């Protein structure tokens, strides 16, 4: 187990990077505590797998260093880093039994057979694989194989960190949440640092204590699921997390007050000095409500999702989404809305203004 420090990591796949666009990772600085459950969340191609491979040692970063417990491991080969990784597609050794698969990492390290036996049985018990130790690994279903992959990491007592690279991609939907809660439970049980890479916000938010949101090779926000939801630091986070995502609307400033399409708004940001850049207003659909003292809008469409409704509104050509409760009345004439000031923020060039 270890604390992981990423110190000024930059990585480019081209041998001779010329400008910023050549970097898959632009500048990553992070300290991840021992025993934490982290998720790396971001769209495809944002650099999260690259970052994962740098931590596991399958890639050496172009610049910067990786530290495990303050020891520099940037140039340490994968096999000596004491890490485990579960891949997107299940990796099992086809010709071996489940038992031999789980024993493989220990045998490679010369652990005596009787200790291996005890350890494999213990881990198999944890993963609900105890009944199928004698079966050929190739015969198992995808979720069984992913458990084996995970088990090969868990059997080793010296593992610093277990990494998951979109591990639920090939799992049937009805087994996904089972395996997800199993992971959560295992994390509580073994207490190893875990890093979970995904582009699925549900997976990230349910698994992790802290979520690292990445886009385009940069970390835009690190925070608890609640923080990401309530205080998105970047319009991308607001948009990417939440369903539907945050409303991002054009913002004008006049006399220290923000306004949107002529409607003056109170916000949680300091509107007197927002700094340079293109200004936008960000507010989640959850914090938009009908209010007779608000500004007028048109109702375009109402989608009933059962427990709540998504109302699509329009004001001067800008679309605004709001979430209305089951029982909330949608005014038929002259609807007016307001934004909750505590959750309405100004963003300058995408970054939140405090």
């Amino acid at each position, binding site marked *: 187990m270890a604390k992981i420090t990423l110190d000024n990591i930059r990585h480019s796949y081209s041998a001779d990077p010329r400008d910023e666009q050549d970097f898959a990772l632009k500048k990553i600085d992070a300290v991840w505590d021992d025993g934490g459950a982290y998720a790396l969340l971001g769209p495809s191609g944002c650099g999260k797998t690259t970052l994962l491979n740098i931590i596991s040692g399958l890639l050496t970063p172009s610049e910067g260093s990786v530290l495990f417990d303050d020891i520099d491991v940037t140039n340490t080969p994968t096999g000596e880093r004491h890490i485990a990784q579960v*891949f997107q597609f299940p*990796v099992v*050794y*086809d010709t071996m039994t489940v038992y031999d698969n789980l024993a*493989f990492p220990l045998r490679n390290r010369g652990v005596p057979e009787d200790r291996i036996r005890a350890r494999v049985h213990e881990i198999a018990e944890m993963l609900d694989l105890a009944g199928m130790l004698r079966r050929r690994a190739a015969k198992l279903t995808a979720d069984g194989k992913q458990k084996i992959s995970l088990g*090969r990491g868990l059997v080793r007592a010296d593992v610093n960190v277990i990494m998951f690279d979109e591990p639920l991609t090939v799992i049937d939907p009805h087994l996904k949440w089972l395996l997800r809660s199993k992971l959560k439970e295992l994390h509580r049980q073994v207490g190893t640092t875990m890093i979970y890479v995904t582009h699925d916000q549900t997976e990230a938010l349910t698994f992790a204590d802290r979520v690292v949101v990445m886009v385009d090779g940069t970390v835009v926000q690190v925070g608890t699921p609640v923080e990401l939801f309530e205080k998105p630091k970047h319009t991308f986070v607001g948009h990417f997390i939440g369903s539907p995502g945050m409303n991002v609307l054009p913002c004008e400033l006049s006399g220290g007050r923000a306004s949107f399409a002529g409607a003056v708004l109170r916000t949680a940001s300091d509107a007197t000095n927002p700094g340079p850049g293109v200004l936008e207003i960000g507010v989640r659909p959850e914090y938009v409500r009908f209010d007779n003292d608000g500004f007028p809008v048109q109702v375009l469409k109402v989608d009933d999702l059962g427990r709540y409704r998504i109302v699509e509104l329009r004001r001067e050509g800008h679309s605004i989404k709001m979430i209305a409760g089951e029982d909330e009345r949608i005014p038929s004439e002259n609807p007016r809305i307001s934004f909750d000031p505590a959750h309405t923020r100004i963003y300058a060039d995408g970054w939140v203004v405090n």
Partner: protein
Amino acid sequence: MSQKTPNQKAWYFVVPVVVLVAFNAVIPLMTVVNYSVQETFGDNVFFWEGVKWFQQVLHSERFHASLLRQLAFTGMILLIEVPLGIAVALSMPRKGPWVSVCLVLMALPLLIPWNVVGAMWNIFALPEIGLLGRMVNGIGIDYNFTQQPVSAWMTTVAMDVWHWTSLVVLLTYAGLCSIPDAYYQAAKIDGASAWAVFRYIQLPKLKHVLTIAILLRFMDSFMIYTEPFVLTGGGPGNTTTFLSIDLVKIALGQFDLGPAAAMSLIYFLIVLLVCWVFYTLMMRDEDQ
């Protein structure tokens, strides 16, 4: 629901393939079956002989000797070509500019017509003027494939290895390229040695292509004719007379159509049987 109109015109689509298979497989095979149970003295007059030719072939010392030579030859080339092919494929680069160079070099022997291969090796190995023959004799080894059985065998085997190892290499290489990177990464993380990677990842993943490679090499080498015919003509004596060379001698040299037909059928059944047994064994635990 829709009413189905019977339409038998679809059969016309099958006619070309039926005609093709009939003319290139069924009719020739049945002609051979016809010959194998009859005796003829010319003029298209045939006498029924039953299984006499089959009994004669199965009890013939000559057939036993050719079959033994054939099995020895096929066994030897498989034992050399398969491990050698895997070794070469493993050492070929997986990416970069050398990939295409290696692939072209590997494919070259496969593009040369079989009789040309025989002729090339014949000249190459001639003790007086051939590069190989002169060199081997030059380092003090008495080597003359036209007179010494051991030299003739070694030359024939070397020629086949040169000609066909590439096939095993290319199939194995394709198989290796299709193994996802994640397997190698997992093996690194699990601390597996290079041998463990080969034994537990590469070899199991290559099982299918290797099965195909071995089957192809078995069938081709078991029916080999042109190359040894051009190289040694089956000699010296009968020492490199493999089954197909012997068969042609009986059929066209002696014009014994009955025994030759019976031998062809036995030959065919041996190839079929070995392939079936091998394939069944290899695929046995696939769908348990």
